[in-house]
């Protein structure tokens, strides 16, 4: 039984990335084969992640800022999987991508487009096991900067560029806030490691707690920015709409997930101070409420599916924030993990189908789905499943996620949030079913183009559908991984 040290995982990821960059740079291989190589490499790393042993007691990476616990491992796999799916989508997206690249040849820029997510993946994996503010900051920045590049990388598409700039400015703004926040927390506690902070906090005088709260607030702001919590969500719809579809999916799943993991990690030490805990309860509740309302309600009038999914990702951030806000009922980590896992499946499924339809019709409008039920049953079925799961219909993983969330909320007496949930869930049904209506009620326009679905995409759709339904009925395996 071989066992690798956990931090080897990220190193392997980075090595894969660098190796592929070299290949891309110095050889004339077909870029898509790079993608396959990346996928297989990351798959191998997932396998590897099941062989990790305990952290070696070495000075190189002190426990203080690199923890590897069960959730962290789960999320590493989660992120690896989402990266793989992103690369699959990206390979499928290649034809569209090439249209928007100032190209000096076939498959221009595709290599970078397929390889950069690997580094993002490494950054995310570091994020989920970061336990020190410096570590958090650095890995966060790695992720953010690589996303700047990926979002803006379709240079001949003004939408992509505009999205890039918006993400850049607001992202940098939130970077400023997190740095300033970290500054204050460090300044008052004299520590950057969460464990140390936890120890230091109880010794502080009342006045310093104000400063701690100030810093914590600033950190919350920029984490809220990452997970798209209202009122820091403004970038989301625009960037989602503008960015290349695979990147949008990657953003909405992986980056949000990592954001939530960090959020939980960062909040945890501050709960020891009861006054801070009370304040946090209020703030988180308010954030969750605003996010729920804004995301769900503003999604209702949308007509562009990509943008709609942007709003829906805000909405789901809201549900996840309910989970965060109901920490009083017990640890909300597993619940959030489960919800995110489900969210991964259904979001990638949705974007996969969207990508096919959009490539055929040339736009992301919901009306492009008219009559899909007869034009391409497979895609329609996939979209149906993912929409129902997003809406939270039973026998899909989405329902279980919501169920666990609201169970926790009731358990911790968050009745306000539950009440808001009643409204938002039913409006959620409305806007997700808008897509179903387009697919099955509306007749297809006569000039509706035929949609080709590669066998591999079919396989992916089937895989994701099955995942959604199976975990919607037998969640136990996932939950076991999270305990």
């Amino acid at each position, binding site marked *: 039984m071989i066992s690798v040290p956990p931090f080897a995982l990220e190193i392997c990821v980075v090595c894969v990335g660098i190796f592929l960059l070299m290949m891309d740079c110095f050889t004339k291989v077909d870029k898509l084969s790079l993608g396959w190589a990346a996928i297989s490499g990351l798959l191998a790393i997932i396998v590897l992640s099941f062989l990790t042993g305990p952290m070696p007691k070495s000075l190189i990476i002190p426990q203080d800022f690199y923890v590897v616990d069960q959730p962290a491992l789960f999320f590493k796999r989660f992120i690896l999987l989402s990266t793989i799916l992103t690369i699959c989508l990206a390979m499928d997206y290649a034809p569209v991508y090439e249209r928007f690249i100032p190209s000096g040849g076939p498959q221009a820029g595709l290599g970078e487009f397929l390889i950069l997510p690997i580094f993002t993946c490494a950054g995310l994996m570091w994020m989920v096991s970061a336990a020190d503010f410096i570590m958090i900051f650095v890995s966060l920045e790695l992720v953010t900067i690589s996303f700047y590049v990926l979002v803006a990388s379709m240079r001949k598409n003004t939408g992509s560029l505009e999205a890039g700039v918006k993400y850049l400015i607001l992202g940098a703004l939130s970077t400023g806030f997190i740095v300033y926040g970290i500054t204050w927390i460090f300044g008052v506690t004299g520590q950057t490691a969460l464990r140390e902070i936890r120890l230091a906090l109880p010794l502080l005088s009342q006045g310093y707690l104000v400063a701690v709260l100030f810093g914590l607030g600033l950190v919350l702001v920029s984490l809220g920015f990452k997970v798209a919590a209202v009122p820091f969500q403004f970038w989301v719809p625009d960037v989602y709409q503008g960015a290349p579809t695979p990147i949008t999916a990657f953003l909405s799943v992986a980056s949000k997930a990592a954001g939530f993991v960090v959020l939980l990690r960062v909040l945890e030490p501050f709960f020891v101070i009861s006054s801070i805990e009370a304040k946090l309860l209020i703030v988180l509740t308010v954030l969750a409420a605003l996010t729920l309302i804004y995301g769900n309600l503003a999604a209702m009038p949308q007509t562009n599916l990509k943008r709609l999914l942007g709003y829906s990702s805000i909405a789901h951030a809201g549900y996840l924030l309910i989970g965060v806000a109901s920490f009083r009922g017990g640890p909300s980590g597993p619940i959030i993990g489960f919800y995110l896992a489900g969210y991964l499946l259904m979001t990638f499924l949705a974007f996969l189908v969207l990508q096919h339809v959009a490539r055929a019709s040339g736009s992301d409008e919901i009306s492009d789905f008219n009559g899909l039920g007869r034009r391409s049953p497979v895609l329609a079925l996939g979209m149906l499943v993912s929409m129902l799961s997003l809406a939270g219909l039973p026998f899909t993983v989405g329902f279980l996620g919501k169920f666990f969330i609201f169970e926790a909320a*009731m358990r911790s007496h968050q009745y306000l949030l539950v009440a808001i949930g009643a409204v938002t869930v039913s409006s959620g049904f409305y806007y997700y079913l808008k897509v179903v209506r387009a697919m099955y009620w509306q007749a297809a326009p006569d000039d509706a183009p035929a949609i080709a679905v590669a066998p591999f995409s079919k396989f992916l759709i089937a895989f994701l559908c099955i995942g959604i339904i199976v975990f919607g009925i037998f969640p136990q395996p996932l939950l076991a991984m999270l305990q």
Partner: protein
Amino acid sequence: MSPLLCLIVLPVAGAALIIAGTQARTTAVTASALNFLASLIIFGTCKPDQGYQFVSSYPVVPSLGIHFTLGADGLSVAILLMSTAVTLAAVCVTRTPPKNGNWFYASLLFISAGAIGAFASVDTFFFYMFHELALIPTFLLIGIWGSGDRQAAAWKVTTYLAFGSFVLLVGLIGLYLSLPASDRTFDMRRIAELASSGTAQPGTVVYVLLIVGFGILVSLFPFHTWAPQAYASAPAPAAMLHAGVLKKFGLYGIFRLVMPVFPPDISAPLNTLLLILVLGNILYVGFVTISQRKLDLMLGYASVMHMGYLFLGILSWKTLGLAGAALMLVAHGLSIAALFALSGELRERTGTLDFAELGGLAKAMPTFGLLFGFAAMASVGLPGFANFAAELMIFFGAFSAGTPSKLGFNEFQVATVVAVWGVVISAIFMLRGYRRIFMGPIGDKWKALPDIAPLPRLCVAGLIVLLVVTGFFPQIVLNYVTPALTWP
């Protein structure tokens, strides 16, 4: 594999096959016919007085006490039989729509599977999940193949029921959390035990949540407005399944999760209010029904109105009223299904259900008129049909409910008086409808209408025969349901 599981799996498998592309109609008919036979066998082998049988349980989320537990006692067995019968009838009377009919049949089977699953579940969690399964098929059925203002109706019913069932979900979670943390479970039996032993004390809030949640699903006044419109625009088989079978979910839930759990001191304070709502269903909706000018809307409102009787029987909180309500549940399912089947047939023939345009059709279609007459009389609550026995028991139960042994009138008795007047009201609108459509001089354009086709005739006749049998021998059903509805 437990027989109940196969009851659920058969329709689902049928739907899957249909989507996969087998011949839709034959598959659906075989699946539902087999299901009907299976439920007959179950009905025969079930021993009503021995509580839950055919129990089979698979753990799903042990940490939360969620198990996939199937089981059936007399009550659920009776309702299951009704459900499968109605499903069979619905599938048979279906006229395969021109475009993607396979989805039509698949949706029907899914609705049926959802209802059956709900009635066969002992685990509250799956009980809920199965009911939700029927939401989207309804949406598709009404939205794609509906008539009239189908889109508005489909949106309304879907979002509204989604809202209602979320309220219900919250209520169920509340119930779950009100159990002692040591043994929290979703098992109905255990919940009932814990509640009766007093270890679990769910509060009034939970009670209200459950009543409102179930009430919305059962179209309790004033949450009823989704129902008539939906049934009016739904294709006949969908209306049959939804009004006949699926809607009964709410009442079944009250039998299972409200009756045994909440002691009178929680339920009593709200009785007056609920009675007022029930009278709203019977009297107010009754008048609304009288004012309808189209058959489909009239039937929709009528089914809403009859829910009032059911609720009255339930509120009586007495075995007599409850048994009556359970009998009514079966009877109403059968009769409303027959009525919707016929009105669907009628729409297929005449293209309109407007009283003003129809008339004297019995001349052209005597058998049709006869069958409709039977079904109408059944739903009016004429002796000889199960509905009468049910209404009778409900009235007796409700009249004797409330603070007992006092000959002065309490609120229940007042309510009963009004409810009995509802019998007159339902006679008024049913006979009016019958007179407008089937009696009087016949219009020229209807003279050539062909009489009802053999297969629909067979289905409707079958339903009516069931009604008559249970009407002559209500004891058959009562023997099954009564043990399930008597608590210490």
